């Protein structure tokens, strides 16, 4: 949906929305909030 809900929710500002791609930078702490906020469940957190 590219709505940006995850970007605004990320507590460490690790996400950016680049057109249709959500990019995650090294700041990610794998809290999983972005996967919860996604209204359509499009995100998954794989810790590696």
């Amino acid at each position, binding site marked *: *949906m590219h*709505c*940006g*809900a995850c*970007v*605004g*929710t990320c*507590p460490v*500002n690790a996400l950016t*929305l680049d057109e249709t791609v959500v990019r995650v930078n090294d700041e990610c702490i794998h809290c999983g*909030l972005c*996967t*919860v*906020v*996604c*209204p*359509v*469940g499009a995100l998954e957190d794989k810790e590696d």
Partner: protein
Amino acid sequence: MPEVQEWDVVVVGAGPGGSMAAREAARNGLRTLMIEKRQDIGAPVRCGEGMARVWLDEVGITPDRRWIAHEVKGARIVAPNGKFVTLTEEQAGNETGFVVHRDIFDRTLAEAAVRAGARTMVKCAATGVIKDGKGAVIGVRARHWGNELELRAPIVVAADGYESQVGRWAGIETKLAPKDINTCIQYELVGIDIDPDINEFHLGSQSPGGYIWIFNKSDDSANVGIGVNLAMIEGRAQAKHYLDRFIEKHPNLKKGQNVETVAGAVSVGLPLDQTAADGLMLVGDAARMIDAITGGGVVNACKSGMIAGRVAKECHEAGDFGRAFLQRYERRWRAEMEEQLIRNYVAKEKLITLSDDVFNKVVDSLQGFKIERITTRDVLRMVQSRYPEVVKELEDLL
């Protein structure tokens, strides 16, 4: 090398808050640039599109047939068991009266900013703030059709909504706790059976920590959506699942066809403690000026945007863009709306704890009463007479 441009004020974001700030700044003679990351101001419509009429005059917006989709006379608060009470337009607050085409509404406000003298750039995304040696914001970096820009201005207005990057870049704490976030999704359903004069709000555990709205866009179509609280949903059950479940249970909606899906999130906490930094003001959703009960933000975005536009002018007159000078922005928007925001936040915190049983009993107690002349004391008395055990739970709320 990035292309450098000099402006009196740069506004980031062309939603209602940004456009009102740009309009006001331009009217006051400032060289004003408003940038929008999307190619299309107003779209996608991340909004239930319900809007009161009364406040428009205050901020100098003339109701316009282009953006009024439909008019309603009131709203229905529907309990989980399907019983409801009907409120008049005045009682239903900021979200009832007009149902609008938000994309055209936003476009109209942007046009007004342009006609006042503002310049716009769409498909222009802010990528960072420019700071001087002392840490004051003196512009934004942006990308426009692949070109890197340095948009320099002694004062920047951040109207970048829920995502609100600019405030963070400038060092303002904008972090949200999960309990202060509602995740939302909405459909535009066509070919449904509704009472065209009445919008609906459905409460209870079918939309944990939020509500389901049915805001009529014509006699047989509506913006049907949901907001659910991040701290209250089961696991990763998404907003979409809750909304689909609701529609599945309502044959009058299920028969409709969806012509648009939009998703997003909204903050339902308190407004930020700090909405100004050296060279920067935050307006609207970016400053978390959201009615925590309804999730509505357009009215406050417009009001704070207008205040910010005027303060930008005063900054230029005084030659002072520092945080101390910008306290006048803090003072003015808080005087205008903060008390109401706090009151509704406190009420919301209580509301979301009520069980379906309590919602059902309260709405049941109010059956058959004329709501127009009702006071909160009347509500308590009526509930007391039918369900004395429930009154304790309501006392804090009312």
